[in-house]
């Protein structure tokens, strides 16, 4: 099984450890992972701004770059959903079959781990109280967990994986799946509302007693981290893959390093 690692551009540039953790977890299960370095961005920022013409070349590149792999795995629900749910109209006339192939073999990280690797348990303990932030696109587009609005029972993949980490206590915020307010360019264009939304997620996780907030999407966490660091709140963010890869036992070490 040849897996192509699809690393969102902001993870590549700003959170390399999230991609390294993803790679490590997959390798622990004997998966052969490759990172084709012609990849850059899936085109989501352009598409979400309404600039379909600028997003289309990104979609075509993705097909070329990943065509030789059996699977494509991505540590982001949002970027995965971009490929699996929002590329369709770029290939209405041309390249439909090639896109179908890509769509079918592209998986979000927790989805891939839960579906193909089916771990019994993870070896490295994480003795902390963890709040799970369900990122919207993972939840409401990829359906990786139970959406509070929907009356259909759905497996909670991230929760299942976290329950297999020794010592980890999952704490529950009162609003189990409210948006953090990142939303890509929304975070800047609607900065006031975006900050208010993030603030309310932070308070919710803090009152639940979380020491760490985790998510399948680093973009949500980047936004929360920005707020937390500015306010010097005792809560830290970690991508799910980082927890599963056994990242720092001392969670008080900042992601920024020794400062």
């Amino acid at each position, binding site marked *: 099984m040849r897996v192509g690692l699809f690393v969102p551009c902001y993870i*590549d540039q700003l959170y390399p450890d999230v991609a390294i953790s993803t790679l490590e977890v997959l390798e622990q299960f004997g998966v052969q992972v490759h990172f084709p370095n012609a990849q850059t961005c899936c085109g989501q920022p352009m598409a979400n701004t*309404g*600039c379909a013409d600028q997003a289309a070349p990104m979609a075509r590149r993705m097909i070329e770059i990943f065509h030789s792999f059996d699977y494509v795995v991505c540590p982001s629900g949002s970027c995965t959903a971009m490929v699996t749910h929002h590329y369709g109209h770029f290939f209405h006339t041309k390249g439909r079959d090639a896109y179908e192939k890509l769509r079918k073999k592209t998986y979000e990280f927790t989805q891939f781990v839960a579906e193909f690797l089916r771990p019994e348990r993870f070896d490295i303990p994480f003795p902390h109280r963890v709040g799970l932030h369900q990122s919207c696109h993972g939840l*409401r587009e990829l359906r990786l967990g139970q959406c509070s609005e929907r009356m259909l029972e759905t497996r909670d993949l991230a929760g299942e994986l976290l329950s297999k980490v020794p010592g980890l206590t999952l704490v529950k915020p009162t609003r189990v799946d409210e948006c953090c307010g990142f939303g890509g360019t929304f975070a800047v264009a*609607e*900065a006031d*509302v*975006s900050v208010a*939304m993030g603030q*309310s997620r932070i308070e919710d996780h803090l009152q639940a007693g979380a020491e760490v907030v985790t998510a399948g999407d680093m973009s949500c966490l980047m936004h929360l981290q920005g707020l937390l660091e500015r306010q010097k709140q005792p809560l830290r963010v970690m991508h799910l893959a980082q927890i599963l890869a056994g990242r720092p036992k001392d969670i008080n070490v900042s992601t920024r390093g020794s400062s």
Partner: protein
Amino acid sequence: MSATVHHPEAAKEFVANSERMQWHDMALWFVRNKRDLQAAKTPEWEYLRELAAEIKAHTQANLDVYLEEFERQAAARGAVVHWAADAAEHNEIVLGILQKNGVQRIVKSKSMLTEECHLNPFLEAHGVEVIDSDLGERIIQMRNEPPSHIVLPAIHLKKEDVGNTFHQHLGIPPHISDPKVLTEVARGHLRRKFLDAQAGITGVNFAIAETGAVVVCTNEGNADLGASLPPIHIACMGIEKLIARQEDLGVFTRLLARSATGQPITTYTSHFQGPKPGGQFHIVLVDNGRTGIRDSDQFREALNCIRCGACMNTCPVYRRSGGHSYAAVVPGPIGSVLSPAADAKQHHSLPFACSLCGSCTDVCPVKIPLHHQLLAWRQEIARLGHLPASKRLSMKAASFLFSHPRLYSIVGSLGRLALRMTPRWLLYNRLNPWGIEREMPPAPRASFRKWYDRERARQNPLPVVSSSSQQNMETQP
């Protein structure tokens, strides 16, 4: 007709008053929770949603046939059916009926359609006294404000605000905020207006082609009083309110109240067929852009809307920016879909007043893919040239950059370097909206691709990355 509205600016004041904003958020979240409880108690909930969407799709596909059937049936029961192509025609028709009958005072129950047509100011300009009889609507009418929510029009106000308003307009003593007292005051005030009115205008929740009946759902019974006390009842409806058969109505009444307020059913669900003895019953059917939406493959489903307000209650942006920030007749997710259809330039910022979380789509009882439609609107707005140049150009630049991996890699390194080297005062200022209340993300020395190139690509034995080497990579100078 109004100037272009920029949602982020319009939201500023509401968000800045964090105490009130949080109260507003909590009040609506409470309603959303009540809705969840009711939906969870209905085992066939998702089936009902599917069914409702299909019934609406069917009706819209055959709208011409059903509208004519409705007209025939309604007329057979003594109603007079009027057709209005747009808001102006609608207003003229209503005024015509009133003038013909010498009506000077009317009571009106809640109707988003008459808001959309700006009927109140039109009638008032022609010397007709219009009293909104829904309590929330009456309060904002006194304050000369538009509704901030389609089901809870005065949700932006606290009980103290209502006390003040009644003090100013109804002459009650100052500083009364007991909801019970205020309700009694309103009841006494409205009762007189009901008795004085010469005609009643109501909205319509559903119209049934098969029977020619219109159905009005309220909790206060104000529509029933307004329709029954005066001799003339005028029911105003958008053509999308139609459903084909009586037996389908239950699908919608079950969804509507549960979605709107978390009640199993509205207190009053009234069916009107024909005039009362000696009275008149008029039904005004309004298009006002609906046919255009019906003909669009992208946005057709927006006509499914039963105006339950659930998408507002669940919207994390709406709850924190308030209904008035949308500067539109219908705020929130569905408003941000409908308003640009009326005027894309004026409302160009609304489809962007959305984090694309998708909660509205899942909560909507008639399965309108709201967040997909908002995304589709963004494309429309870009296509129509209403996107600000800053957005347009930056996306062009990004697309170019992302098409050239080597350049992307270099620019990335430079960007991170700049992020590390730039002094705080230069990095955090008004030109950087991210940084006003947030720290910038970390700027590690090496990107993932650099790391991969070094550690994996050359097929070196794969070293386990210890947390210390990890630290080095992300350490700032």
